[in-house]
């Protein structure tokens, strides 16, 4: 059952305390980013990119030779515009999602109901995810053969699949019971784990996307 807490009784952190927590959180974030980047780098070194001549499956070959693919790849403006939109989508999706994750962890927006953060923050994230998936698909279409040969691409797809599983776990196991801990600052352990996993995975996905570009 929900604890008998009113929103007002949740103590608002004092300025310095809060700043300290944010600072420590971000330091932890940077360390995680660096560790994840090192992990991605080691993984990709273990599976080096396949050479140019490596045959790719017929479907990848077909995609790579469609007019849309070479059109995007060789254009002066279309590729940068799609990639710019991809970046915008990242800011919208990960940028909004992280506030929900941070609320689950009790690190930010502590005096807001979790259901309210979900209701108002997640639609923004979903718009962002729509943008990244659409533009990401177009970018893949344009560079299908290169992506197929790059270990970074497969690591990134694996990480996205894991993030999807984490979201599915949250949706099926935790979301239905969300009202029980709606106003809690310290949410159930499973919810906090889901929050950390989401933050780490999306950080890793952004990093892998960036490292992938350097191997192309």
């Amino acid at each position, binding site marked *: 059952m929900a604890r008998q807490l009113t929103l007002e009784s949740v103590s608002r952190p004092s*300025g310095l305390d*809060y*700043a300290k927590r*944010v*600072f420590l959180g*971000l330091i932890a*974030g*940077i360390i995680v*980013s*660096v560790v994840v*980047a090192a992990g991605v*780098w080691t993984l990709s070194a273990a599976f080096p990119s396949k050479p140019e001549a490596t045959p790719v499956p017929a479907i990848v070959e077909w995609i790579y030779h469609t007019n849309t693919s070479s059109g995007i790849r060789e254009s002066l403006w279309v*590729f*940068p515009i799609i*990639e*710019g939109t991809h*970046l*915008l989508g*990242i*800011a*919208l999706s*990960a*940028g*909004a999602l*992280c*506030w929900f994750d941070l609320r689950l962890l009790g690190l*930010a*927006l502590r005096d*807001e109901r979790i259901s*309210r*953060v979900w209701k*108002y*923050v997640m639609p*923004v994230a979903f718009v962002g995810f729509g943008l990244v998936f659409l533009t990401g698909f177009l970018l893949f279409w344009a560079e299908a053969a290169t992506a197929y040969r790059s270990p970074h691409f497969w690591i990134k797809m694996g990480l996205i699949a894991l993030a999807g599983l984490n979201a599915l776990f949250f949706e099926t196991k935790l979301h239905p019971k969300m009202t029980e801990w709606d106003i809690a600052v310290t949410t159930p352990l499973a919810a906090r784990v889901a929050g950390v996993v989401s933050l780490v995975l999306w*950080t890793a996905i*952004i*990093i892998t996307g*960036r*490292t992938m570009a*350097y191997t192309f």
Partner: protein
Amino acid sequence: MHYLLPIFKWFGASSIGLTINDSRWLFPAIEAVHIVALALLCGAILILNLRLFGITLPGKPVRQLAEELAPWTLVSLLIILTSGLLLFSSEAMKAYASVPFQVKMVLLFAAIAFHYTIYRKVIYADETQIRPVWNKLAAVVSLVLWFSVGLGGRAIGFL
């Protein structure tokens, strides 16, 4: 611009710039940190601006939300500026010649100046006193400025 050339040259010749330039993985690694912090900053700016529009978290006082987001904004901005300076050091001369870079820097200083002056005044204003149109206007200017900075950064790599 030419009177700024010595500064660009100094950064370009600095040992930090050269080290990053010589390394295969340092540039991508710093850029990754730059972009992760960018997502966080844009997220914080976005949530606050959507609140100014009355779209996200209606009912939560703007001032309270702003106070809560301020440290996240500041620290992620500092991470972005530091990592950005490192990236810049490694290709200072390329940046000197790059129009998108110049545009981005002007937009960046404009965005920071706007954020900590006019914008600050609007978000900390008494909500019962301020006309909603100022909230919305400030939000639009802020969004346009920050997103142009991001897109300007992307353009450096292409033009």
